């Protein structure tokens, strides 16, 4: 049943023009960004690196920053699909189809989460392929890129879980979207507050999802980061199920 809901949600995402429009805009913007980063690398940075012994390469100076922006754009796109999948569905009364069917709230939440995660996977894969195309012209550190891509995917998909939770709280799409972006800002603020010299806090840094992504973008795969993203996902999925359990009988 979870797969059935995932399949239906995923199909609905692609049946709407909004997915194609957002995907096209994201690819266009990220393509331009990659071009700017490359241009900057060849015109300014490359010449300065010649004298350095262990100079960072294209992977560190172009692809890592590019993937950072892939993650940032991704977490701005995800809320829109979470709102569409949960809040709009509730607004239109279509949620009653699922809640009246012989399925559990866990299956409903997981089905929607996997559909968004699948979207996040395709988004990460397509955007990464733009960067990987550079491999035809120069040597890339594929290990680092794989770690960074994994980081981007975990960062976006874990935020999908948070977006699903928030989107289930209200039946007004604009409020849901604002609340999800608000949550994103809180996480960024935690990072800024935790890393400020006057008020640095390891706890704040750990709680924010941003430093975990930043570390993985440098190519390091630390189980702390993987565990963080998994716990973050699990927490918000459980909260979503709890929220539905309070609303419906299950």
């Amino acid at each position, binding site marked *: 049943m979870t797969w059935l809901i995932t399949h239906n949600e995923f*199909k*609905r995402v692609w049946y709407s023009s909004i997915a194609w429009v957002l995907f096209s805009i994201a690819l266009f913007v990220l393509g331009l960004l990659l071009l700017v980063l490359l241009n900057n690398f060849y015109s300014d940075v490359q010449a300065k690196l010649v004298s350095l012994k262990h100079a960072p390469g294209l992977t560190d100076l172009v692809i890592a920053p590019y993937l950072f922006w892939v993650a940032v754009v991704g977490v701005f796109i995800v809320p829109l699909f979470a709102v569409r999948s949960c809040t709009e569905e509730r607004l*239109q*009364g279509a949620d*009653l189809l699922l*809640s*009246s*069917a012989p399925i559990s709230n866990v299956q409903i939440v997981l089905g929607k989460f996997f559909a968004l995660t699948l979207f996040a996977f395709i988004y990460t894969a397509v955007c990464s392929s733009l960067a990987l195309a550079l491999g035809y012209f120069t040597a890339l550190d594929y290990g680092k890129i794989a770690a960074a891509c994994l980081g981007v995917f975990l960062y976006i998909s874990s935020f999908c879980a948070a977006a699903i939770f928030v989107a289930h709280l209200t039946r007004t799409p604009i409020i849901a979207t604002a609340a999800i972006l608000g949550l994103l800002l809180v996480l960024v603020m935690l990072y800024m507050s935790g890393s400020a010299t006057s008020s640095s806090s390891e706890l704040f840094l750990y709680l924010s999802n941003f430093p975990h992504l930043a570390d993985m973008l440098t190519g390091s795969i630390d189980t702390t980061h993987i565990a963080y993203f998994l716990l973050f996902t699990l927490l918000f999925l459980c909260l979503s199920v709890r929220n539905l359990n309070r609303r419906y*009988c*299950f």
Partner: protein
Amino acid sequence: MTQETLLSVQNLQRSFDGNEAVHNLNFEIHRGEVVALLGTNGAGKSTTLNMITGNLKPDAGEVNICGLNVFTKPKQAKTNLGYLPETPPLYRELNVSEYLQFAACLHGVGKAQVQNSIDKALEICGLNTVRKKLIANLSKGFQQRVGIAQAIIHNPALVILDEPTIGLDPVQMQDIRALLDDLSNNHSVLLSTHMLAEAESTCDRVLIIDKGSLLLDQALQNLNSSPDKRVKLRFHGNPPVEALNAIVGCRSVSCSQYGNFMCRYDGADFIQQVQAQSLENNWQLYEIGPIASSLEQVFLDLVVRDSGVSNAQAIQ
């Protein structure tokens, strides 16, 4: 012979912010019955149906569908249930067949039977001509039919329909009523409506609910056999209410501020007697007309009178 109980509602209660929406509701639906849940807007019909279908948690009470408790065994209980909420739960970006396929799989119809179930539901609901059309592009009447199709696609024992004809034009309403007639051959149906004609034409039994309380649970046949009839009388003269009350067979008379008399009577020759008295006393009777069916009469008596509005005012 005892009838199989498909739905049993016991002591159901629900409040919103201290306002009691449903109060101690008790009723049963047996196999093969078509039951109307009647009430004015805000009477608690949709709240009741939402609780029966497991979409709203009650404060107290129990709901059993085919003997299975909706709150403790929701998965099993919902297998026997088809539900059309007030707003059909449609995915507008899908076409009719895709949507029904999803609904069938969601309700546990086996892979081998899915296509058959879809074809059957399309046939019953008259959707064959629009099976490949996007739901968003269908008229409201057809969208309502798609909603009904998803409720019956898994052939449930009990179908619950919340105001299925609301917002439809008279032709679409007629079509949906004909569809309800067909449904009643194979399913037990609980139909929520505030349209009395709809209930009279399609149902075996009526439940009248007001302010969350059940006021009446009676077979329609028994209501129709009630000896009381009502008639509206209009005179150019101004006969005293007492004079009309004194006519043999008259049970009660009320007069509106516009001079309309509403008489309840049970005698066979009451009308002839009114005409005779009118001639005799020069009341100048110029209009006689039946003003309500039995169900309407009962409904008005129970609900309208209860809320402090006289019957005569209610029928103007």
